[in-house]
């Protein structure tokens, strides 16, 4: 048995080596970008499995600007920061809002767009968006988003129902399993309100932009202290803004300025 054990051990070792060796070493200018693929119009997949959307186009444009080889890694939103920290990906381009809370864990580029959040409810339901009005009501949010954090902290008497994907929030909204959903306004419009399933639903309550919760726009997230990459990406975003690349991309999706009103606040400039 001993000899066999040793042999099997060698075989297994070899096999594991082959398996792991086939995983490549991260080298030079290869950037693995975490994207979501379930957040239209920013990120979605078409029937052929191809990724498309505003986030994806921005990611490709940034890579072209950096002359880097990019690999898109599809990943659930609540796994983005853990994946970044465990070095499964090098950057996140998934409509991730730049918040102080997240800044403790990751590095952010300047924003590449900014849109507000709002509640969606069934048309005519007359739900009052307030602590007492939402008491006992079910609020659907995507897990670990700014919406999740804000709703959890603000509406303590409501029941927060957390979903892995934004699609699932909309599916359950249409099914009537949640009373209200706190979502990005653009994602809600394209992904739900303008679809047949969303025709009986409407926005209600205030438009949320409070930076403490909703951040200062969506940015590219990177590992802490990945300063070089951050600077390169900031430069790329600035160039794209200046040379019209950004406008060309945004016009493909939106008939308004998705960049929003906040001016970029580079942490470098702050220092």
């Amino acid at each position, binding site marked *: 048995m001993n000899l066999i054990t040793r042999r099997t051990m060698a075989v297994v070792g070899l096999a594991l080596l082959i398996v792991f060796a086939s995983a490549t070493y991260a080298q030079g200018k290869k950037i693995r970008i975490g994207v979501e693929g379930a957040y239209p119009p920013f990120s979605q997949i078409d029937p052929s499995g191809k990724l498309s959307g505003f986030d994806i186009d921005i990611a490709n444009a940034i890579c072209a600007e950096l002359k880097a080889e990019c690999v898109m890694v599809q990943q659930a939103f609540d796994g983005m920061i*853990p994946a970044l920290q465990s070095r499964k990906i090098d950057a996140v381009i998934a409509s991730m809002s730049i918040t102080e809370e997240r800044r403790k864990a990751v590095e952010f580029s300047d924003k590449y767009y900014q849109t507000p959040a709002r509640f969606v409810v069934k048309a005519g339901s007359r739900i009052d968006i307030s602590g007492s009005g939402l008491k006992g009501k079910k609020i659907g949010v995507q897990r670990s988003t700014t919406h999740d954090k804000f709703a959890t902290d603000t509406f303590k008497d409501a029941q927060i129902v*957390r979903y892995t994907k934004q699609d699932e929030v909309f599916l359950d909204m249409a099914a009537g399993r949640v009373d209200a959903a706190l979502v990005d306004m653009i994602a809600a419009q394209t992904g739900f309100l303008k679809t047949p399933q969303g025709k009986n639903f409407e926005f209600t309550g205030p438009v949320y932009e409070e930076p403490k919760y909703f951040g200062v726009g969506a940015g590219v997230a990177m590992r802490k202290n990945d300063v070089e990459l951050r600077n390169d990406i900031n430069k790329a975003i600035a160039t794209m803004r200046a040379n019209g690349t950004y406008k060309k991309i945004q016009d493909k999706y939106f008939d308004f300025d998705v960049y929003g009103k906040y001016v970029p606040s580079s942490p470098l400039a702050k220092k």
Partner: protein
Amino acid sequence: MNFEAITEAIPSYFAGVSVTLQLLCVALLFGLALAIPLGVARASNNRWLSWPVWAYTYVMRGTPMLVQLFLIYYGMAQFDAVRDSALWPWFSSAWFCAMLTFTLNTSAYTAEIIAGAMRAIPAGEVEAARSLGLSGWRVLTRIVLPSSMRRALPAYSNEVIMMLHGTSLASTVTLVDLTGAAREMNARTYLPFEAFVTAGIFYLALTFMLVSLFHFAEKRWLRHLAPRSQTVLQPIAIAS
């Protein structure tokens, strides 16, 4: 390891354990209640009885429980007929959908376990009962079922453990069970290692508790079948 974060999250883990155990107990209870008649039908010599049950268990055991759960939770809501029906208040609850899925799933596996145990009963036991003049129904309820339920214990204990693990899928349909608590801690603190190791330890403890419970039960009710084989945790799938 960030123990501070773990300590802080412990209460939510205990809340998760309670949801997990509720789902497990209710599903096992209803599942067993369904499985007994199904198992009897499956073991029957009448094709018209055994064949439909075979088809049911084949489909339930041949597809992932995750697919079954999504079919019931998300799939049912696709139809207006379901959404407008009197059943909707039930199907609109994630808890009910999870419980229904787990119940149907475990009833299929348990029915096969019971049917297997019934087939394994020595013919002599049945013949002895018949020769005493017991009716078919009496033979079934007094001899065959009690005896086969006991024999089914080791296999059933595996099924219970597999169901305990299966309940972790509840976290994919918004329920905050033990796994859900871990996923929320992960989302909140970005500490996946701490979050899932803690959940793993809780599950291990639950598994050990269930295993020792069944060891006790086997000692009590299976003494007559010595030498017993040790209970081995094995997933039970379609082949029996």
